[in-house]
């Protein structure tokens, strides 16, 4: 059984795709109202633990790219935390990280350009900007949700923990496909 793929099948009629990255709806926008709150960020968090073990991943759907990006992003987030970081510190750190790290796929210093098969020569500046905005929002949502999950007591999912759960931290050294952002 190979690594898990995203279940968000992109239909280009409804979802805009820039630089091969689909701008899938994030639940923080309007979809919460529509009741469909499970979005790509939730999926990234769900599949993160299983997929980090894999070294090969075949991109079938363009949403897999977003999934890959998300998983690698969580990885970088976890490596910022230590076993003793408090929750408030973590929120700050990860927020700043989400704002700062703003290399957009398609830019020359984005490491996964090859893998994502991005050809950005035809992309307009406006699209670049839109993708940048979208990914920043994506990262912020992801970081927020991650903090919620990491700071839960592993023995009792309803309780909050003081320090990050070691059952999340154990993945901080793992590298999905031996890559990092």
């Amino acid at each position, binding site marked *: 059984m190979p690594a898990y793929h995203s279940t968000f099948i992109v239909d280009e009629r409804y979802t805009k795709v820039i630089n091969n990255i689909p701008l899938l709806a994030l639940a923080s926008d309007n979809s919460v109202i529509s009741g469909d709150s499970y979005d790509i960020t939730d999926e990234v968090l769900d599949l993160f*633990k299983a997929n980090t*073990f894999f070294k090969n991943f075949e991109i079938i759907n363009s949403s897999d790219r977003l999934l890959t990006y998300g998983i690698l992003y969580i990885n970088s987030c976890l490596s910022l935390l230590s076993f003793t970081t408090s929750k408030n510190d973590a929120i700050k750190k990860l927020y700043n990280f989400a704002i700062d790290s703003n290399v957009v796929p398609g830019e020359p210093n984005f490491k996964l350009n090859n893998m994502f098969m991005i050809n950005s020569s035809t992309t307009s500046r406006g699209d670049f900007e839109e993708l940048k905005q979208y990914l920043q929002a994506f990262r912020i949502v992801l970081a927020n949700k991650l903090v919620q999950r990491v700071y839960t007591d592993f023995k009792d999912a309803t309780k909050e923990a003081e320090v990050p759960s070691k059952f999340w931290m154990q993945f901080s050294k793992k590298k999905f496909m031996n890559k990092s952002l």
Partner: protein
Amino acid sequence: MSYLNNPAVVMDNGTGLTKLGFAGNDSPSYVFPTAIATTTGKSTGSSTRTVDQSFSNLSVSDSNTSKAYLTSNSTSATNFNSSATHSSAILSNHLSGKRGTEDLDFYIGNEALLASQSQQYSLSYPIRHGQVENWDHMERFWENSIFKYLRTEPEDHCFLLTEPPLNPPENREQVAEIFFESFNCAGLYIAVQAVLALAASWSSPKVTDRSLTGTVIDSGDGVTHVIPVAEGYVIGSAIKNVPIAGRDITNFIQQILRDRGELDASLKTAEAIKQEFCYVAPDIVKEFNKYDRDGSKFAQYIVENQDKTSRKLIDVGYERFLAPEIFFNPEICSSDFLTPLPTLVDETIRSCPIDVRKGLYNNIVLSGGSTMFKDFGRRLQRDVKTIVNKRIEHSEQLSGTKSTGIDVQVVSHRRQRNAVWFGGSLLAQTGEFKSYCHTKADYDEYGPEIVRTFSLFNVAQ
């Protein structure tokens, strides 16, 4: 009352573990590492005892010596001995002072592991990849197993030994030379491990016809074999190996424990967690979610030091299902071997002659300690079935005809851990066993080549 009806001795010498016992028992009497500690020649101890003294050293009062191996009956090849305190008691061979008895100065099994802690002995494993590498050591290993552990006079017993598939016939002859010439054993039968594992599966209620056709998945400490057997004969050309087995699982668990910064991430702890907590999950993502929702899935393992003064609590988490998962997704721990076990099983069977394939799919038998995880058989059955059904569907589409389908069945049973030994015990306790053995008289008459062939057991019972 027939006194000459001694039970046959069943010996299964594996790469990691040796199982010794008597036919008719339901479990081996001894399970210990196939290890031998031989003297390095540097005698550090100054033992200048007289014969009389060493006589008395073997007395009843010396119960310490015996206690050491009483307490160390581990079930794993990667053995960890908790009774290190006994090591001083056990190292009282008193042979270092006697000239000319160096060949008797050695230990086997758990005692060998203990002895090797001192400078005086060096440890070696006479069997590599299932085959005997060092015959000198093996001969002495047998010598000690027979006389010290089993306390049998080989002249009075028949022996059933096992061999790996594709064992060269020369090795069989070597075994015969040792058993007939050194030990004068009454009778010898050498059986292929996979065939015995098939026989052991007869104890499962799932098995209705006692056939010797099936696919054996034998996973021990070092390697996992997939061995197709048709009518008692191994289809050698189709055998496949997976370089993933018990040791890799233990290492994988250890790595996870380290990543998580647990207080104790020794191999010993990893081994214990593997044996106590691991199971096979149907789907890992779902299993991860279950753990995140329900904290009771996490377990705790307590590490105590030797004198039980300090305790460490080790939390056990995802490794419970992730570790056995490496059979089904080797990718998660190995970078060079990527074929999942179910795929390999399917490939193995497809490389066999077409007329036995159905029987091979029908009777997939598990054997060895690393197949003992809960639901291992069920997951394997499901995955193989999925592969087979997909292929059938595809061919149905292409040909437009309806296939009768293939029934995939994985048999797991209670004797799985020592399946090979148990199969040997089953066969050797039958009345006819003696007639299948080659005897010392045969050997003297024809020479070692008689052991190249053994008649198969009559399976129609």
